[in-house]
């Protein structure tokens, strides 16, 4: 047992894995809704791929759990981890089912898109024009999420997609951004991307 105690399998802390799992599950649902709203198969495919990533995170959580068990009682408690892993898997499966509606070309009732557009957290698509102040800046420099209230889920550049871009992602003219936020914040970023509003974050 001593040997195992020393072997520290720590790609990330348990907490970090858990937070990452939460974010990934939520991201998958958002991305799935985006794919349905815009009929974009690439977005749907990414949702399916994220399932594998979530499986990997689940696996890391299990490794932590097994290594942490030091008594039969703790080993029994492992059911709570399995329980949680299973539930997170259910969420990702639901997101994948949503994405499959697009991949399998299910005939969508027009209500579906209206629902996505009228819920509290909506999804918007922004085409960055050359005049926009976004051009040439990174998400970090712009503090886009806090300044506009829009969280960028994915970016299409030409035919390529980038998912869940990080802070040093630089926006170029012609980029198509897909983001989540409230209706007001979505409208605001649309104007900025179009080049109508020339300042960002007035607070």
């Amino acid at each position, binding site marked *: 047992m001593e040997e195992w105690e020393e072997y520290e399998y720590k790609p990330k802390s348990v907490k970090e894995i858990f937070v990452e799992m939460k974010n990934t599950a939520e991201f998958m*649902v958002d991305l799935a809704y985006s794919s349905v709203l815009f009929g974009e198969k690439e977005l749907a495919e990414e949702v399916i791929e994220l399932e594998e990533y979530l499986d990997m995170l689940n696996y890391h959580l299990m490794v932590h759990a097994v290594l942490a068990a030091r008594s039969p009682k703790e080993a029994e408690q*492992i059911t709570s981890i399995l329980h949680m892993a299973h539930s997170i898997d259910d969420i990702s499966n639901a997101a994948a089912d949503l994405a499959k509606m697009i991949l399998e070309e299910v*005939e969508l009732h027009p209500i579906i898109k209206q629902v996505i557009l009228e819920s509290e957290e909506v999804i918007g698509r922004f085409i960055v024009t050359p005049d926009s102040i976004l051009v040439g800046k990174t998400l970090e420099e712009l503090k886009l999420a806090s300044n506009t209230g829009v969280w960028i889920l994915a970016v299409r550049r030409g035919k390529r997609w980038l998912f869940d871009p990080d802070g040093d992602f630089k926006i170029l003219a012609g980029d198509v951004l897909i983001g989540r936020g409230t209706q007001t914040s979505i409208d605001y970023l649309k104007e900025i991307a179009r080049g109508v509003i020339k300042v960002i974050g007035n607070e």
Partner: protein
Amino acid sequence: MSELEEIKSCLIEMKDISSLMVDLAFSSVMYNSEDIAEEVYLLEERMDELTLKVKKLALKAAKEEEKPTKLLSIIEMASINEAISDAAYKIADLVLRDVEPHPIIQRIMEDTEEELGRITVRKGSVLIGQTLKQLKLPSKIGTRIIAIKRGTRYIYNPGKDDTIEEGDVLIAVGSDLDRLRELAGEEVEEE
């Protein structure tokens, strides 16, 4: 209201509820909050009602639709939201069950210095009638409002222009929620 309009408003509520449930379920575990886990439980009940309602309405609407098969996508969407909420409920259930969770889950719970809770806005509270923008709760008392429950409806991720009303239940996270409890007019036990 026509059946389709009714379906639409149900589905919108379901979509909002399922995202809120996922957020609250994970948070209830991270902050080991039974209050919030209970909130997830209540939302789950509402979700079940809505799911059944949408399915019934879709069947009724099928009579008048030119292509009734299109309504399948509506039933599918309702089921997907129900599946998400069931999963969220199971996660929150870890907090509600008497069974002691695995040390790993306890470790997730322990190293957080913040608290997540429900606070009811009482009559006469200074918060009433103020917008979140006016209140500046994050900078003034280090508290962030995740959702506002008003009657049976929830305002998820409330914005700057949302106003607090008497009777609202605030779902908030912060290092010291007692300050918010005082402002909301709840009685705070002196330590």
